[in-house]
C-alpha cells in the first residue's frame, strides 16, 4: 500500500513538473496540442494525488501502523472520525491535503474556463503546475506520509486537543481557503504572462476568490470556537502567530474583494488588485510556513521539521516572481480613469482597502517581530496582546464605520448634503443607541461603547438599504435576486456587526473571579453563586478524567463540571472547561477548574461571565448565509459572459 502511495506522489510530481515546463513551452510557442497535453497533466496530477490520499486515508482507518505517519498520529482506541482527521493532524498529511486541494481546485478551474479563456488558461496551467510541483516535491523528498516501519502493536495516538469535532472540520476548512487563493493568483499571473490584463481573469475567478475567502473566514470562526471550548483559557482568539497566519490572507482577500469592484466599474486599481491577489496567496503559503516550520512558538505548531527552509525559499521566489511580473506589466495595468471625488463609493472602498491592508501589515509585523529579533539580537521578543488590541481598535473601528457609510454613498460623486440626508436615520439610530447604552452603564468601556454605537449605525444602514431597495424594485426577494453579490455582501456585513458586538461584549464587559475552594465553599460573580460539591475521578479506556462538580445558583441553576483529562495515548493532559449558556441573559458562565486535587479535594477555580459571546458563533452562520447568497450561480451573468466572449472563441 505504501508503495502505491509513494508511486502516486512521484507520478504527481512528474505530472506537475510537466504541466509547468510543457505549459510554458506551449504558451510561449503558441502550440495548441502541447497546451492541451499540459492541461491533461494537471488533471492527471489531481487523479494521482487522489490515489495517494486514498492510500493514506485507508491506512488511517485500518490502523495500519506499518505507516510511520499512522503510528505517530493514531492508536487503536481512536474513533474512526478522529482517525480520519489525523490526515491533517500531522505535517505530512496536511501537506498532502494542500496538494490534493490545489490540484483539485486547479483542474476544476482550468476545466471550467478552458473554452472561454483559452489564451489565459494556457498560462494558468504552468503557474498552477509550478505551485503543485513545489508541494509534490516536498512530499516526495522531504516529508513523505508514506515512510514505513515495522508495525508496532499500537500507535502513539492523536494529540488530545485535536480530538474535538471542530478539529475534524476546522483545518480542512482553512486549507480550502488557503489553497483556494492560489486560483485567483494563478489567473492573475496568467493574465499578466499572456499580456491580456483585461477583466476576464477577474470574472473567471470571482467566485473562486469568494469561496476561498468564505472557507478561510468560516474556518477561523470554527477554530475560535474550538479554542473557546477546548483550549480553555476563557478566550477564543489569542493573537497566536498561527491564528494570525490565517487572518492575514483573509484580510488581504477582503481588501481584494472590495477593490476589484472598482476595477470592474471604473477600470482603476489594476496594479493594486494584482498586488492584493499576490499578497493574499503569498500570505497563505507563509501561513503554512509559520504553522509547519516551528519558527514561532504557537499552540498550533504540532510538529517541527526541516520543511521550513523549503517553504521560506518558495515564498521568497514566488514573491519575487509576482513583483517582477507586476513591474514588467506596469504599462498594461495603467488606469484609464481617475477618482472623481473623495466623497464617492469608490473612495470609500479605497479607504476601506487602506485600513484592511494596514491592519494586515500590522499583524504581519507582530508575527515577524519575534523572528527578526531572534535573527538580529539572538533573543526572541514577542509582541503581546495590547499591541494587537490597539491596532484592532485603531483600524477596526473606522472600518466598521465605513461599512455603514460605504453602501449609502453614490458611485462617482456624492454631495455632502445628499449624503447627510441619506445618513440621517442611521445617525439618529446610532445616537439613540449610544445614549441608551450610556444610561444602562455601558459607558464603562469606551471602545465597547464605540463598537456598539457603530454597530447600531451599520445595522441601520443595512436595513435602510434593504427597505429602500425593496420599495424601488417591489420586493425584497426581487432585490436580492437581481444583485446577489451586493446583497449577499450586506448580509456578510451584518455578520461582521454581530461579530463586533460579540467581541466587544465578551471582552469589554466580561467579568471574572478566581478562588481556592474545598467542598462546601462558594464563589460569587454577577449574581451567580458556585459551590464546590465534590471532586470526582473517572477512568475511561484512554484517559483519567478529574472533575470538580460545582452547584450553581442564580440566574441559572444547575451543576457545572470542569477539570482535566490525562490521556494515555499520547500521554498528554487536556483541560476540560465547564460552559453554560444562559440565553435569557445572553451570556456564558465559563468555569476553569485548574489544579483539581483528588486527595485534598482542593480546587483552584476561575469563573468568567462572558456577555454576548454567542453572537460570535451566530455571526458565523450569518456569514455563511451571506456568502452563499453572493456565491449562488447567476444564469444572467453567465449568459452575459458567454455573449461577451463568444467571438473570442470563434
Amino acid at each position, binding site marked *: 500500500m*505504501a*508503495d*502505491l502511495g509513494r*508511486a*502516486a506522489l512521484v*507520478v504527481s510530481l512528474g*505530472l506537475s513538473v*510537466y504541466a509547468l515546463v510543457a505549459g510554458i513551452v*506551449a*504558451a510561449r510557442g*503558441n*502550440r*495548441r*496540442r502541447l*497546451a*492541451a*497535453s499540459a492541461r*491533461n*497533466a494537471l*488533471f*492527471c496530477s489531481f*487523479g*494521482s494525488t487522489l490515489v495517494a490520499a486514498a492510500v493514506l486515508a485507508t491506512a488511517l482507518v485500518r490502523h495500519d501502523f506499518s505507516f510511520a505517519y499512522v503510528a505517530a498520529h493514531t492508536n487503536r482506541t481512536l474513533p474512526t472520525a478522529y482517525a480520519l482527521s489525523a490526515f491533517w493532524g500531522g505535517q505530512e498529511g496536511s501537506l498532502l491535503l494542500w496538494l490534493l486541494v490545489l490540484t483539485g481546485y486547479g483542474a476544476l478551474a482550468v476545466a471550467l474556463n478552458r473554452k472561454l479563456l*483559452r*489564451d489565459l488558461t*494556457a498560462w494558468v496551467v504552468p503557474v498552477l503546475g509550478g505551485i503543485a510541483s513545489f508541494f509534490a516535491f516536498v512530499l516526495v523528498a522531504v516529508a513523505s506520509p508514506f515512510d514505513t516501519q515495522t508495525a508496532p502493536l499500537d500507535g502513539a495516538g492523536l494529540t488530545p486537543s485535536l480530538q474535538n469535532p471542530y478539529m475534524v472540520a476546522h483545518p480542512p476548512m482553512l486549507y480550502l481557503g488557503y489553497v483556494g487563493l492560489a486560483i485567483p493568483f494563478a489567473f492573475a499571473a496568467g493574465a499578466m504572462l499572456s499580456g*491580456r490584463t*483585461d*477583466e*476576464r481573469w477577474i470574472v473567471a475567478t470571482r467566485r473562486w476568490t469568494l469561496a476561498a475567502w468564505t472557507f478561510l473566514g468560516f474556518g477561523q470562526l470554527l477554530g475560535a470556537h474550538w479554542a473557546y471550548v477546548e483550549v480553555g483559557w476563557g478566550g477564543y482568539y489569542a493573537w497566536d502567530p498561527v491564528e494570525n497566519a490565517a487572518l492575514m490572507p483573509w484580510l488581504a482577500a477582503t481588501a481584494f474583494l472590495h477593490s476589484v*469592484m472598482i476595477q*470592474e*466599474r*471604473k*477600470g482603476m486599481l489594476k496594479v493594486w488588485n494584482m498586488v492584493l491577489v499576490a499578497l493574499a496567496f503569498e500570505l497563505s503559503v507563509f501561513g503554512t510556513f509559520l504553522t509547519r516550520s516551528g519558527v514561532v512558538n504557537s499552540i498550533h505548531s504540532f510538529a517541527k521539521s526541516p520543511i521550513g527552509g523549503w517553504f521560506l525559499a518558495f515564498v521568497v521566489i514566488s514573491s519575487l516572481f509576482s513583483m517582477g511580473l507586476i513591474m514588467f506589466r506596469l504599462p498594461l495595468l495603467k488606469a484609464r480613469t481617475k477618482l472623481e471625488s473623495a466623497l464617492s463609493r469608490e473612495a470609500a472602498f479605497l479607504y476601506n482597502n487602506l485600513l484592511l491592508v494596514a491592519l494586515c501589515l500590522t499583524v504581519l509585523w507582530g508575527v515577524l517581530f519575534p523572528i527578526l529579533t531572534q535573527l538580529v539580537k539572538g533573543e526572541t521578543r514577542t509582541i503581546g496582546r495590547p499591541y494587537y488590541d490597539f491596532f484592532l481598535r485603531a483600524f477596526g473601528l473606522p472600518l466598521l464605520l465605513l461599512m455603514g457609510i460605504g453602501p449609502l*454613498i*453614490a*458611485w*462617482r*460623486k*456624492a*454631495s455632502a*448634503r*445628499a449624503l447627510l440626508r*441619506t445618513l440621517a436615520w442611521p445617525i439618529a439610530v446610532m445616537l439613540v443607541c449610544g445614549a441608551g447604552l450610556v444610561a444602562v452603564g455601558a459607558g464603562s468601556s469606551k471602545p465597547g461603547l464605540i463598537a456598539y454605537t457603530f454597530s447600531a449605525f451599520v445595522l441601520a444602514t443595512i436595513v435602510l*438599504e434593504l427597505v429602500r*431597495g425593496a*420599495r*424601488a424594485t417591489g420586493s425584497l426577494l*426581487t*432585490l436580492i435576486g437581481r*444583485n446577489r*453579490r*451586493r446583497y449577499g455582501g450586506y448580509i456578510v456585513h451584518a455578520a461582521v456587526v454581530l461579530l463586533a458586538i460579540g467581541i466587544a461584549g465578551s471582552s469589554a464587559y466580561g467579568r471574572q473571579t478566581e478562588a481556592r475552594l474545598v467542598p462546601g465553599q462558594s464563589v460569587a460573580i454577577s449574581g451567580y453563586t458556585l459551590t464546590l460539591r465534590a471532586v470526582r475521578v473517572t477512568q475511561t479506556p484512554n484517559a483519567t478524567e478529574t472533575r470538580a462538580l460545582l452547584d450553581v445558583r442564580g440566574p441559572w441553576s444547575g451543576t457545572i463540571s470542569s477539570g482535566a483529562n490525562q490521556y494515555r495515548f499520547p500521554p498528554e493532559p487536556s483541560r476540560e472547561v465547564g460552559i453554560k449558556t444562559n440565553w435569557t441573559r445572553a451570556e456564558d458562565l465559563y468555569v476553569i477548574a485548574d489544579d483539581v486535587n483528588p486527595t485534598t479535594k482542593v480546587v483552584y477555580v476561575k469563573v468568567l461571565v462572558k456577555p454576548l459571546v454567542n453572537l460570535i458563533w451566530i455571526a458565523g452562520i450569518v456569514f455563511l448565509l451571506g456568502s452563499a447568497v453572493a456565491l449562488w450561480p447567476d444564469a444572467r451573468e453567465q449568459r*452575459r459572459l458567454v455573449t*461577451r*466572449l463568444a*467571438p*473570442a*472563441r470563434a
Partner: protein
Amino acid sequence: MSIVAGIVLAALVVLLVALPFLREPVAADDRLEAPGEEEARRLSLVEERDRALGALKELEFDHRTGKIGDDDYRELVGPLRREAARALRALEPQRRHGAAPEGLESAEPTARDEVVATPQE
C-alpha cells in the same frame, strides 16, 4: 499488487497526457486560439460598454433610492449617457454614424429613468 497498481497508474497518465498528440498526430493548425489585436480591442470596447451601461443603471438606482439628489443626477447622467453611446457606437459600426442609440444622448432625465434597474455587480 501495489507495484502493479502503480504501473497501471503511470501508464494511464502517460496515455492521457499524450492524448492530444495521439488524437491528432499531424495537426493542420496547431496554433492556440488566442484573441488577435482586433479581438482584444473588441473585448476592451465591450468592457467599456458594460461599464458605462452599468454606471448608468447604478446612477438611476441611486437616484431612485435617494442616495443622489436631482441636481447631482442631472449633472452626472449626461456624461454617462454620452460615454455609453460612444461605447455602443464603437462596437456597432453598422449603425448610423454619429447617431446615439435609443436616446442615450439626452442629458435630461426622461421617462426611461423611471424604469428601475437593479445594477449588477
